[in-house]
């Protein structure tokens, strides 16, 4: 069953075509890796899928809702974790959870039980009243992910979630992602780390606004005759025109 | 030296390429001057008033005609009774009423005494005052036109002499005020923002790890804004003289020199602000709260300092703009020379020196 369907999606800013007629689907419970160089168009696509901007042309449905007419409904069923981890540094851990729980419409009782669960799950009970600013980066990132999931969304969008984080935490983070996918949440993520592409069920690579590769990591590696995803990416990226002028 | 010139050139690039800011910095003084000159005046014109003439004789008739002829007043009602008077005020239709009692001329000629009552809407006491003064002036005028009568005691007997600005044109006072604000904006705020921006962008780090002497960097940052203020000073003066017809009584060269000198004082202030601010936002806030507000409140340009409580008067001595105000007033409006302004100039010089010394001391050659 497809939770995201994209058909001939195009986005133009004036005369510049940021996203050029792309089509793809994402299945429920999938970990879908959305890769591409800076300027290839990934962020633009992600924003549209989250209902933050409208396509110039094309059809998009997210969680069964049409993007053009039901954008507000889409926002209620998705979670989003931005690159800067979207936590308020000058609020405590508990306060952040409370805040996000509130905006996603959780009741006080739900927030309380979620808070208890999260603190336990991340083993940060003793840090519940610490300012996020004092948390090491790895903790922040895991907390961010939990917060994006606080309202048990169907799909969660992660924008470069492991940027700058140490290797141990990156793996712990991916364990969390695996758990989420296992329980039916669809994970849509972008990343610069090619090895993380390997953890995904399927991967797409954007180049100059188009999707130039789409498939499981195994199939893509065979297709481009390389041994890892980095190889796939380099072969595609070297042919890219955008980014240098 | 070449290094210094290249620095200045770079600063000019930064300044010039920020088109929006340049537009504001060049255009704003001109706009301000025009607004203050034409639109906002302390003059009160065409005020709606009413007359209650209980006497209806020749004298009252003459006085009323003279009041009507004045451009300050517009007689909109001729009231018949006291009750009507109250109603007109309450409805806000008039700001003043001139009331002549019965047998006005008779009293005047036979007893040498006559009273005129001015009823004012004193919601705005300043305006009320001004209207009272205008009316008194007209009445005094009439009195002196009557032949041979002396000692005609009217209830209001004031002697007014308007020095330097006999028509009480508002704009004279505002020109130096606008000049001060513009210089504050360009020299203090923009300079401090420019320096702090280097810190914020991270280029300051790179510059520090180089042979450059930090003082040179800082002075290079001040130069474009100094030149910009010179342009502003000249354009403000030209506008005032030619368009608003504000005469410049004193020595023009001296005036310009003092303005440039004040610009340097303000630049030093900008430097001081940049050494304590770590973000552009902070620099802007300090500039506004610490410079603009005191300048507007306590410099004397907009509100007379002499009317303020003593502690504030003492405080106002710390505001550089106050001393600048005296200097500009003396030269531009009173036409005085160096002999009268050297003390204030010296005070400004002292302040400049003080600011520079502290800023240089506080300039961080490391990141913390």
């Amino acid at each position, binding site marked *: 069953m497809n939770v995201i369907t994209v058909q001939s999606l195009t986005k133009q800013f004036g005369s510049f075509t940021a996203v050029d007629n792309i089509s793809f689907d994402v299945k429920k419970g999938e970990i879908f890796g959305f890769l591409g*160089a*800076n*300027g290839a168009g990934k962020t633009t696509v992600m924003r549209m899928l989250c209902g933050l901007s409208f396509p110039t042309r094309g059809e998009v449905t997210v969680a069964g809702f049409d993007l053009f007419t039901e954008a507000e409904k889409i926002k209620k069923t998705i979670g989003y974790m931005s690159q800067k981890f979207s936590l308020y540094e000058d609020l405590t851990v508990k306060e952040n959870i409370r805040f996000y729980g509130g905006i996603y419409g959780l009741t006080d009782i739900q927030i309380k039980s979620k808070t208890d669960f999260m603190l336990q799950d991340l083993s940060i009970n003793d840090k519940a009243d610490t*300012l996020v*600013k*004092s948390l*090491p*980066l*790895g903790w922040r990132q895991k907390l961010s992910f939990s917060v994006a999931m606080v309202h048990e969304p169907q799909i969660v969008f992660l924008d470069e979630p492991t940027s*700058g*984080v*140490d*290797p*141990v*935490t990156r*793996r712990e983070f*991916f*364990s969390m992602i*695996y758990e989420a*996918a*296992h329980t039916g949440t669809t994970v849509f993520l972008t990343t*610069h780390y*090619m*090895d*993380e592409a*390997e*953890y995904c069920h399927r991967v797409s690579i954007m180049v100059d606004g188009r999707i130039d590769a789409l498939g499981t*990591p*195994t199939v893509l590696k065979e297709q481009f005759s390389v041994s*890892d*995803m*980095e190889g796939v*990416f*380099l072969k595609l*990226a*070297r042919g*890219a025109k955008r*980014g*240098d*002028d | 030296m*070449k*290094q210094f010139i*290249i*620095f200045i050139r*770079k600063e000019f*690039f*930064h300044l010039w390429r*920020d088109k929006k800011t340049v537009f504001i910095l060049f255009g704003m003084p001109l706009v301000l001057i025009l607004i203050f000159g034409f639109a906002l005046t302390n003059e009160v014109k065409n005020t709606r008033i009413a007359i209650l003439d209980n006497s209806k004789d020749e004298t009252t008739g003459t006085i009323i005609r003279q009041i009507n002829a004045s451009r300050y007043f517009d007689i909109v009602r001729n009231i018949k009774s006291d009750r009507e008077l109250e109603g007109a005020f309450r409805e806000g239709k008039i700001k003043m009423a001139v009331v002549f009692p019965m047998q006005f001329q008779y009293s005047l000629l036979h007893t040498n005494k006559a009273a005129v009552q001015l009823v004012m809407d004193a919601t705005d006491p300043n305006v009320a005052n001004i209207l009272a003064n205008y009316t008194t002036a007209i009445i005094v005028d009439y009195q002196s036109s009557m032949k041979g009568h002396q000692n005609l005691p009217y209830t209001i007997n004031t002697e007014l002499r308007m020095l330097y600005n006999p028509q009480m044109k508002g704009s004279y006072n505002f020109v130096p005020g606008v000049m001060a604000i513009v210089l504050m904006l360009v020299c203090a705020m923009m300079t401090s923002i420019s320096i702090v921006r280097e810190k914020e*962008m*991270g*280029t300051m*780090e*790179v*510059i*520090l*790890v*180089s*042979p450059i002497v930090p003082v040179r960097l800082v002075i290079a940052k001040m130069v474009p804004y100094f030149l910009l203020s010179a342009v502003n000073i000249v354009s403000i003066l030209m506008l005032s003289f030619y368009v608003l017809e504000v005469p410049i009584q004193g020595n023009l060269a001296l005036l310009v020199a003092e303005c440039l000198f004040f610009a340097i004082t303000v630049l030093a202030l900008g430097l001081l602000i940049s050494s304590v601010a770590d973000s552009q936002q902070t620099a802007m806030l300090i500039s506004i709260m610490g410079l603009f507000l005191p300048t507007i409140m306590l410099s004397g340009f907009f509100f007379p300092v002499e009317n303020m409580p003593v502690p504030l008067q003492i405080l106002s001595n710390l505001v550089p703009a106050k001393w600048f105000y005296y200097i500009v007033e003396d030269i531009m409006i009173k036409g005085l020379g160096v002999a009268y302004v050297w003390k204030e100039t010296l005070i400004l010089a002292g302040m400049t020196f003080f600011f520079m010394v502290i800023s240089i001391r506080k300039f961080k050659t*490391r*990141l913390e």
Partner: protein
Amino acid sequence: MKSVIVNNVQKSFKGNKSFVQALEEISFDVEQGELFGLIGSDGSGKTTLFRILTTLMIPDSGTASVDGFDIVKDFKAIRNRVGYMPGRFSLYQDLTVEENLSFFATLFNTTIEENYDLVKDIYKQIEKFKHRRASALSGGMKQKLALCCALIHKPSVLFLDEPTTGVDAVSRQEFWELLRQLQNQNITILVTTPYMDEASLCDRVALIQQGILLDIGTPKGIMNKLGKPLWAARASNMYMLMKELKSMKEVFSCYPFGNEHHLIFHNDGQSIEEIETALKKKGIVDVLLKRTEPTIEDLFMKLMNKEKL
């Protein structure tokens, strides 16, 4: 002759309600002409260390020297001779490529022409954009320009703080090729990076995490330090495979590693058939287990876990 010597440098930052120990008694040195990498994630202390070495900060305790000059007493001398490229590229966005370069040259009392052959190879790649404003350049171009600006005065030591972060994979590769070429000029180059794979491109590396120097040595030397045989495991259901392996008592550690899982057994001579059989019983029939060479990242993880204990 050693270009950089660091001796027990310690640094902490005290805030209003926060306290961060940025560096904990770090010591190491760098030979002249070496390409030295500091590998660590965000918050590891690498930027603080660089700022101390470029004399922008003073350590709480400890000493350090660059080219024989003390970082506290002789900071002016150091500032005259090092090249520094901090994070975020620190270029003037509203100046053109040429203007930026010329400015930095003048900053060091030299001209572009004087040392042109030093930056020539790099500059050629951005030369056609020389009248373009820096803000309009791509990440890769900015990076190359920033490198030119740091080199233009012929420094003896080059400090590059995360020059490849946020830049696409192709540019990253090209950048490291440029660095290797620079070594021919006998310039000592210190680079920080969060990317473990870049470690193998250095002469020597130091692994740093949360202010602690975990290890230091040549890339190969470090990789050999794992001490135990490393295995790679693959199956069609990677998630289940991980779960099962982690629950087995024979397994010392197991973690995902790209398209395979890396594992270390308690027993160096562990029988693989035993493991395969145990997995088959749990329903994982298609597992592939083979020996694999450790990478810097494997080492990093082992060292980090040791610190945690």
